């Protein structure tokens, strides 16, 4: 009998090994998402009991709201400016870290420190540094004669978004640095030797040897970072709460406010679904662009 059980386990181990993880995932992902889609078509409220099916009303409501379109635009601005800056800093630092320089280990360690910080702490810390009265940032800029008066970076609609982007760049660039560095280190040295023999200058070497070799890893990091930044809630929420005057209102914060402040669970579900659809489109687009597909990791 025991032998039979053992044989059965051995034969179906592939499925058996998937069961614990997949059942948790079904319980906490699939079921909630289906519930969420359903709720987005109802007028469910956080406090009031009872709700009914109202079709696409939540969607039409959010699409006509000004804050919603502001949030969509802000989310895109926040995401793309963060990603571009993170990528550029990551590329520059990785290219230098790949050089045979003394003390490189120290710099590599220093450059990944920001990524260790919890988003909550990042937001609080930068709030302190960017403050108008005691913030060190203003004093440094005044010392360097860049500004004359202290600026309330997070308190003014014109500067709040840029400040939020800078904070997010600080946090996220190390991932690009490390990823691109790993990509650079995997390039065979023969390729550089050939380029040298052919008489290529540094620009040609970069364009024809370095770049093609790191394209895949850059693509994957860009996808992952874009998804994460697009979903960022905690950092911006603690930093500015979406203000002032909705200048940093992003879709995740908007969704949170609609649901947990105003109690409109149906609407918050609709916003979340909208966010998710954008992300799926993104991911699809990127995967096509970088020719990455699931075979890359699911192949046998």
């Amino acid at each position, binding site marked *: 009998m025991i032998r039979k059980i053992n044989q059965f386990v051995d034969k179906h181990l592939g499925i058996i090994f*998937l069961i614990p993880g997949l059942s948790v995932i079904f319980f906490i992902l699939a079921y909630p*998402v289906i519930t969420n889609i359903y709720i987005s078509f109802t007028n469910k409220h956080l406090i009031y009991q009872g709700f009914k099916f109202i079709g696409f009303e939540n969607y039409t409501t959010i699409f006509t709201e000004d804050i919603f379109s502001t949030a969509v635009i802000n989310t895109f601005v926040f995401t793309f400016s963060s990603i571009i800056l993170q990528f550029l800093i990551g590329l520059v630092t990785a290219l230098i870290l790949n050089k045979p320089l003394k003390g490189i280990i120290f710099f590599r360690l220093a450059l990944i420190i920001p990524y*260790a910080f*919890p*988003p909550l702490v990042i937001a*609080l810390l*930068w709030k302190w540094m960017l403050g108008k009265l005691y913030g060190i940032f203003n004093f440094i800029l005044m010392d360097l004669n860049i500004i004359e008066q202290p600026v309330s970076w997070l308190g003014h609609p014109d500067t709040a978004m840029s400040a939020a982007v800078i904070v997010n760049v*600080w946090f996220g660039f190390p991932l690009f640095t490390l990823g691109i560095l790993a990509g650079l280190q995997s390039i065979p040295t023969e390729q550089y030797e050939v380029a040298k023999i052919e008489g290529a200058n540094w620009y040609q070497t970069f364009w024809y040897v370095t770049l093609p070799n790191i394209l895949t890893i850059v693509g994957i990091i860009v996808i992952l970072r874009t998804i994460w930044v697009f979903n960022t809630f905690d950092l911006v929420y*603690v930093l500015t709460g979406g203000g002032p005057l909705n200048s940093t209102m992003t879709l995740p914060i908007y969704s949170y406010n609609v649901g947990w402040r105003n109690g409109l669970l149906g609407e918050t579900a609709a916003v979340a679904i909208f966010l998710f659809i954008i992300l799926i489109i993104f991911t699809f687009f990127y995967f096509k662009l970088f020719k990455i597909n699931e075979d890359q990791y699911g192949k046998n």
Partner: protein
Amino acid sequence: MEKIKISEKIFYYSLLTFFSIFALFPLYWMVATSIRPYIIVYQTPPLLFSRELDFSAYKMVLTLTPFIKMFWNSLYVSVLTTIICTLFSAMAGHSLARMKFKGKKLITRGVLIAYIFPQILLVLPLYVLLVKFSLGNSHFGLILTYMTFSFPFCVWMLTAYFLTIPEDLEEAAYIDGASKFRVFTTIILPLSKPGLAAAAIFTFIHAWNEFLYALVFLNSDSKATLSVGIYRLMSGEIFDWQAILASSTMMVFPILIIYLFLQKYIVTGLTAGATKG
């Protein structure tokens, strides 16, 4: 090895120094603010360096706030999440990397899609679900919800890692009559220590740093983890920057230690699935 000109070297070092200051200054400023006398913290213009030390903010946080309790809560939640998630994802990853069965492609794709689920999309339905199963305001419920992010990520990473292990070893073991389970525990797992370490570190750090779920799902102070606890400290009546930054320093510290000593695993984790596979 290529020779680098002196002028180039100066250029590289100055860029590295600039970005390192950008990266490290906030850390310095956080610690510095938290260990200075009150008077120096609020003087204008602020002092970049000060020799005077004052640890009263730490004393205040440790004695007057439930910081220690919250620290243990965070540790408990993070360690349990790490153990469960690493175990489940190692099993699932092994299955996806080695076994052949129907619907594998579908599951692989599902994991990939699960990975991009916005947290904000899940927060409401998870709340409804946790309350329904009486798991609201419980650490167990929170640990389950942390799997939404960590499990897909770890499966992705570990599958890629397992694929880099040559199959010859396993085949030799099968010829000797070993069962699949035995091969998994005696060959695959020991060979995958770096990958498993990377998955565990990631899960731990994510659970330790997580904010939104802890904020929404834990509503009693005795259950609060560090991120919610510090946030509530901030939104309380006293807005004491030194206390906030002292507790922040103590929250970041364990993660920094992990970064210092386990850096190579973090790099493995970040690049698995990208350079390999």
